[in-house]
């Protein structure tokens, strides 16, 4: 991870150096950031943390945050594509969940119509079981799923969201039929957690932050995170290290309006590069417990494309999207 991040820093630094001449223009930026969700959720908190860090560090003169809630971001992105064309000061926060939501909602607007700028943060998914469950590790869970996928009940977030996709990918990696998984969506994180704590389901799947305090208190057993390698904050090897080929992360990113000029795109990318390095942003990440996953420019555009392809495959496989 650190090696990876170091590489990122280097490329970010290089990008900043190359684009040095627009720095003064960037200082005068008056940005608008849209959170395509109601106040309080992850995207809104990301937008507001950006606002705080961008203005306090002087990267932008002013930042205005607007909320356009609805349908997993489908309404927000439609507004960005239709009303902000060519606006070089408009950004929109988005995340992995939006990739799936646009597909399941059959949104007429796609992410290909936006201008990808940068990925900011990531959170790995965690699989947990009740503390008294006979399932001890990822191998046990994989064996149970292979035996009968329908008997293993999963509690997680909304249908077609990252939790659902991760559960389907787990089943696939375990050698079971992902269309047969018994995934039970809950509306809020709290409701799913109650069902897991109450032993109503076999396993729970969500961002690790949702489970952390329960795992530490010994009420839930952590099966593993969906990271490539074990992360420092947990005691359990990652699911991939336990031999189940599953790697997925719930990332958050920013995209800009369609039809902006190359200079405008560069100015926005530079501003994000500087944001990622600022002390204020780093402090915010720490306070919120968000993992830094900064990556910008073409590298991010490529990741965005890959995630769209993979998500479409999974959602088609579990029957949420008709191809």
């Amino acid at each position, binding site marked *: 991870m650190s090696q990876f991040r170091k590489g990122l820093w280097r490329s970010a630094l290089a990008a900043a150096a190359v684009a040095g001449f627009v720095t003064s223009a960037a200082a005068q930026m008056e940005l608008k950031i849209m959170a395509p969700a*109601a*106040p*309080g959720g992850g995207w*809104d*908190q990301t937008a*507001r*943390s950006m*606002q*705080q860090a961008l203005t306090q560090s002087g990267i932008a003169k002013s930042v205005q945050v607007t909320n*356009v*809630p*609805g*349908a*997993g971001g*489908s*309404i927000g992105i*439609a507004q960005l594509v239709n009303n902000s064309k060519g606006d070089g000061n408009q950004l929109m926060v988005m995340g992995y969940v939006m990739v799936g939501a646009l597909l*399941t*909602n059959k*949104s007429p607007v796609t992410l290909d119509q936006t201008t990808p700028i940068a990925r900011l943060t990531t959170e790995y998914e965690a699989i947990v079981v009740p503390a008294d469950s006979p399932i001890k590790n990822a191998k046990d869970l994989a064996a149970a799923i292979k035996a009968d996928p*329908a*008997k293993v*009940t999963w509690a997680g977030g*909304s*249908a*077609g969201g990252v939790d*659902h996709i991760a559960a389907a990918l787990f089943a696939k990696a375990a050698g079971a039929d992902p269309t047969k998984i*018994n995934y*039970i*969506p*809950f*509306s*809020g*994180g*709290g*409701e799913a*957690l*109650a*069902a897991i*704590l*109450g032993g*109503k*389901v076999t396993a729970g799947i969500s961002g690790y*932050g949702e489970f*952390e*305090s*329960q795992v*530490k*208190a010994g*009420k839930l057993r952590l099966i593993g995170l969906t990271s490539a390698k074990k992360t420092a904050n947990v005691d359990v090897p990652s699911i991939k290290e336990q031999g189940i080929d599953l790697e997925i992360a719930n990332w958050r990113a920013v995209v800009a309006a369609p039809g902006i000029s190359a200079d405008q795109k560069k100015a926005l990318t530079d501003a994000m590069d500087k944001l990622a390095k600022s002390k204020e942003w780093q402090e915010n990440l720490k*306070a*919120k*417990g968000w993992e830094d996953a900064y990556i910008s420019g073409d590298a991010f555009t490529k990741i965005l494309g890959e995630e769209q392809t993979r998500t479409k495959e999974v959602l088609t496989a579990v029957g*949420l999207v008709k191809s």
Partner: protein
Amino acid sequence: MEAFVSLAGGLAVAIQPANLLFALIGVLLGTAVGVLPGIGPALTVALLLPITFKLDPAGSIIMFAGIYYGGMYGGSTTAILINTPGESASMATALEGNQMAKAGRGGPALATSAIGSFVAGTIATLGLTFLAPYLVDIAVSFGPEDYFALMVVAFVTVSATFGDSPVRGLTSLFIGLMLGLVGIDILSGQSRLSFGVPELYDNIEVTTLAVGLFAVGEALYVASRRHVHEEKLEAVRGSLWMTKEDWKRSWKPWLRGTMFGFPIGALPAGGAEIPTFLSYSTEKRLTKYPEEFGRGAIEGVAGPEAANNAAAAGTLVPLLTLGLPTSATAAMLLAGFQQYGLNPGPLLFADQPKLVWGLIASLFIANTMLLVLNLPLVGLWVRLLAIPQPWLYAGILVFATMGTIAANPSPVELIMLAVFGVLGFLMRRFDFPIAPVVVGLILGPIAESQLRRALSISLGDPMVLLQSPISATLLTIALIALILPFFLKGLGRFRAVED
């Protein structure tokens, strides 16, 4: 006893002048946002979070708790005075409260609601102090099948209560159930009855429906009747304060409301609406003055208001003991905790006793502050009703529209408000009760998704509904509630023949 010592320590934290100030700001803000329909405490806390980042954690969390309790008070004020429930949990209050206000008894209605909220809030906060660790075990053991059974109880008791004619009541309920189907189905992720309108994907907003049916519908109805006969509103008839009789009729509903509100609020998927409906139905059944229900019965205000506030305190049980946010506002409080690197959960009481007990103690203080703030204002509030009707209703329309736009800035939302307004007018004109529509919209989707979850977990075996002891008990209660009235009626007829 240990809890008492800790609570005393918490009081010492809460009565520090700075924290008292935060509590005061919180309750004032909360009352203000509770008054505006659409803007709830959750939104306010969300907007304040980035601002409070630099403040002391204890102070800002105390302020957030003040906003939470304040919002519950503010919502009932508009429900009683102008028939505009500020949030869905105040809907049951609007039913009788607004009738009382129209009969010149707005003063006692506001008073019984404020005192009832105080009583319930205090008892429930005591419950939070002493019962939280025990209650939470029961709350977690509630599975989807048990929630479904609870919804069945709610349907049976509630649908029998609204309106004079069961057919009309059920018709209204089914309109609500149908509206509840609109949007993305939580279990399959597919959209239903949304006709490709993205704004409909997220289901119909309860406050938009409630405000449309209650406030806009009423404004249209009053306007249509003005030429036929002018309704004379008297701001104050009789005493502005509660009479001895009012007290006598209020205290039992307060306690019963608390008994519904606190435990159901503590359930992870319980919410504040269901206990208010259950309390309203119970009071209607137990009252000695059934003829007053629908025309302004004080029991119908006292009970639901107490239930509403007790549920607000109940919500904090899973939040503080498990880190489970069970309402939008609780989710924002959780974000507030996390902002300071505090993780609510099983370890919070042990790790941060000063903060947790400070918060609980400040809930007592916020409650007292709200009572002291609200009672003297009763006299001022009821003057609202002295405003000439055309102005008052024009004001209500502006107010309702503003609240809806503030919560959801979209033209589709406004069109929905207008459509629901017309629906409310027609229902009033043809004498259909409107409350069951909102009840259907709230309970329908919960009942559906919990039943489907239960069946999904049991691999399609419906016996799961009878195997769980909680569910079996609740279903038996529902069955008795359904059959008993017929049985008693039959018995009465039998006796009549004997005579």
